[in-house]
């Protein structure tokens, strides 16, 4: 059948199983929005306050579901406003397809109104990008974009769509999408990995977002149990293992616990699974795992040996690799190793409760009590993010969404919107709790209007210490308390602003007030903001300075 380009786009979206898109209209995408209008019963479009919010929403949607998030923007500023969201998704390997309008092909390259070279701009922050110059290439290019986003190591793909390409028509033949190719782990590499595990006396499993991406939580747990391997995780894998499990040591890295970092230092084998030795984990690439052989398992071959040497590697899909590995590892018990670890656990940092002031860990403890096991958490970036990672009693994969690699302040509200839409709009079934701070929240709080428009019950807990806490913490420790630009003295009345947007707002200064406000928020059918007034001297502990080892850990 002969179809208009814009109609072809909606047809391919439907083919790919897309029923939810996020975006913001504009001149160059009017044809696409017209086609979306015609298909509004099949594809729901959510308009945000700002394209950045839409890009984070598509990202949050993708992280919560594992499906590909889709975001649409117009040309020029619409497209550039997506950049932070695309880079965020790229750094955390989130499958995303960004569709940007562009000026008509005859106007490209003439500095036309709202023209920007977005494929050039996004080249280093996408897995791949395309500009479609002929309507005949449109359908297959879009299909390729979806395939690339989900294939191998996932990530964002951008397709730039000149206006005339969406207005022109051509023959359209429907196709069924093919499942992405499985990257199989090589048997010989798996066997070598098993041999290393079997001879290890002090093994440590260190796993990251790749486990979540390939849905390998069960296989990971089976390996941990069979070979008795203590495990620690990165920010990207919070929730994959249950909070109370004996072999779950906790978060690793700069703000990870003492036990995890000490175990990484003392292990004789580090089994790194679906992770990339980022500088927030392997703070000192020369000394990380200095007593260990390093066995790296990842789907992306370029990660092996990139940051830290690997003594052995298994390249492939983590679920496939772990499934093949499991029968080859011998059942083991590492009692001496556990005894050492149990001793370290006694030295772990424990925050002190307060009766009079709001303490971050108590706020998060109260959230977990009231929100229950099924809650999905989204954070922004900074101190509150680390407190959330440290103190949320995570229980489920895909229930902790955070910008790990790029560290995008302002990620949280958009991502919460995406996650809320992905998981149904009911706090009773699954609360979506957005843990944020005054610094991060000020960046994109405008998305409250989106949450109000669509009746999205999102509970934003704003840890307000009136300063840029993480920046200030570094200035305290490393810059002689010279608080340059980190104490903005804002006077925002969050409860009033919330009301102005049509949301509900609370302000709390005690734990009792907070519990009451949060319980109230759980009953709401729309967005709620809860401002928690905390002390500006609150720090994230423990902390290992950049480039340091567990020997440099700061515990108080």
């Amino acid at each position, binding site marked *: 059948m002969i179809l208009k380009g814009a109609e072809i786009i909606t047809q391919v979206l439907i083919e790919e199983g897309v029923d939810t898109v996020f975006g913001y209209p504009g001149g160059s995408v009017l044809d696409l929005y017209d086609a979306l209008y015609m298909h509004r019963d099949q594809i729901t479009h959510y308009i945000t306050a700002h394209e950045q919010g839409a890009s984070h929403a598509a990202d949050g949607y993708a992280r919560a579901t594992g499906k590909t998030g889709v975001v649409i923007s117009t040309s020029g500023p619409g497209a550039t406003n997506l950049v932070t969201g695309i880079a965020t998704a790229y750094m955390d390997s989130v499958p995303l397809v960004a569709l940007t309008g562009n000026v008509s092909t005859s106007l490209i390259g003439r500095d036309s109104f709202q023209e920007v070279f977005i494929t050039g701009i996004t*080249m*280093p922050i996408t*897995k*791949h990008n395309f500009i479609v110059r002929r309507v005949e290439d449109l359908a297959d290019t879009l299909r390729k974009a979806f395939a*690339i986003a989900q294939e191998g190591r996932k990530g964002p793909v951008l397709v730039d769509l000149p206006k005339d390409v969406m207005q022109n028509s051509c023959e359209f033949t429907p196709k069924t999408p093919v499942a992405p190719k499985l990257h199989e782990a090589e048997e010989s590499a798996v066997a070598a990995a098993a041999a290393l595990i079997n001879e290890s006396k002090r093994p440590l499993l260190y796993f990251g977002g790749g486990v979540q991406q390939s849905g390998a939580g069960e296989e990971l747990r089976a390996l941990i149990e069979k070979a008795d391997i203590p495990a620690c995780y990165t920010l990207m894998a919070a929730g994959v293992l249950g909070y109370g499990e004996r072999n779950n040591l906790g978060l690793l890295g700069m703000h990870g616990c003492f036990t995890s970092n000490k175990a990484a230092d003392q292990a004789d084998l580090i089994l790194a699974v679906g992770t990339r030795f980022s500088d927030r984990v392997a703070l000192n690439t020369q000394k990380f795992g200095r007593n260990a052989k390093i066995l790296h398992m990842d789907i*992306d071959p*370029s990660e092996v*040996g990139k940051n830290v040497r690997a003594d052995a590697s298994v390249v492939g899909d983590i679920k496939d690799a772990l499934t093949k590995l499991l029968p080859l590892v011998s059942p083991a018990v590492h009692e001496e190793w556990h005894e050492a670890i149990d001793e370290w656990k006694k030295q772990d940092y424990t925050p002190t409760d307060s009766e009079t002031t709001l303490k971050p860990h108590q706020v998060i403890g109260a959230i977990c009590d009231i929100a229950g096991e099924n809650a999905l958490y989204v954070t922004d970036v900074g101190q509150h993010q680390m407190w959330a990672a440290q103190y949320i009693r995570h229980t489920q994969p895909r229930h902790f969404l955070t910008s790990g690699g790029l560290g995008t302040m302002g990620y949280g509200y958009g991502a919460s919107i995406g996650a809320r839409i992905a998981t149904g709009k009911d706090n009773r079934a699954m609360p979506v709790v957005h843990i944020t701070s005054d610094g991060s929240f000020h960046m994109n709080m405008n998305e409250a209007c989106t949450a109000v428009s669509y009746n999205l019950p999102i509970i934003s807990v704003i840890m307000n210490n009136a300063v840029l806490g993480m920046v200030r913490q570094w200035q305290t420790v490393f810059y002689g308390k010279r608080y340059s630009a980190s104490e903005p003295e804002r006077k925002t009345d969050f409860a009033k602003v919330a009301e102005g947007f049509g949301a509900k707002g609370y302000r709390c200064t005690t734990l009792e007030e907070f519990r009451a406000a949060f319980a109230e928020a759980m009953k709401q059918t729309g967005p709620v903001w809860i401002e928690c007034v905390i002390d500006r001297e609150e720090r994230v502990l423990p902390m290992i300075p950049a480039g340091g080892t567990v020997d440099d850990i700061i515990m108080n």
Partner: protein
Amino acid sequence: MNKRYLSVLVDNHAGVLARVSSLFCQRGFNIDSLTVSATDDPTVSRITIACQGDETTYDQILKQTRKLVETRAILSLDPSVSLLRELLLLKVACDEPTRGALRDVAAIYKAKIIDLSPGSMVMELTGEPDKIDNFIKLIAADHEILEMCRTGVTALERGPVRYKLD
């Protein structure tokens, strides 16, 4: 720092070169020379890159370049079994008394004199990068170089091997 040569076979699309060079730039891989050329397959271009780096850096160069969607094959060329060639155009100031000396050097190196104008001579030389370096050094020792242009390395492996496309 070792000299490295790689041959990257890529889709013959607009923008591929930008993608490859953007990757090198972002990751801090230094390029000594880069050439793009047609191959016997009209859908495929060959990018030949000469670069320097330690083992780890080079390993990353190979892996990151291989990851590009438009990369169809990548070969690390071992110079001992490869043919590396470069073309040089060298414009040298010359007058009648120096012309003879220049002609001697050209003859020894099998360089061609392709232009002789009042006050200058242009020589063309094809060869391995080392040979070109030496030739330039020799000329520069006694003569004034006015301009020069090197094409960068282009290379093939010896023997009946042929790349396999992804």
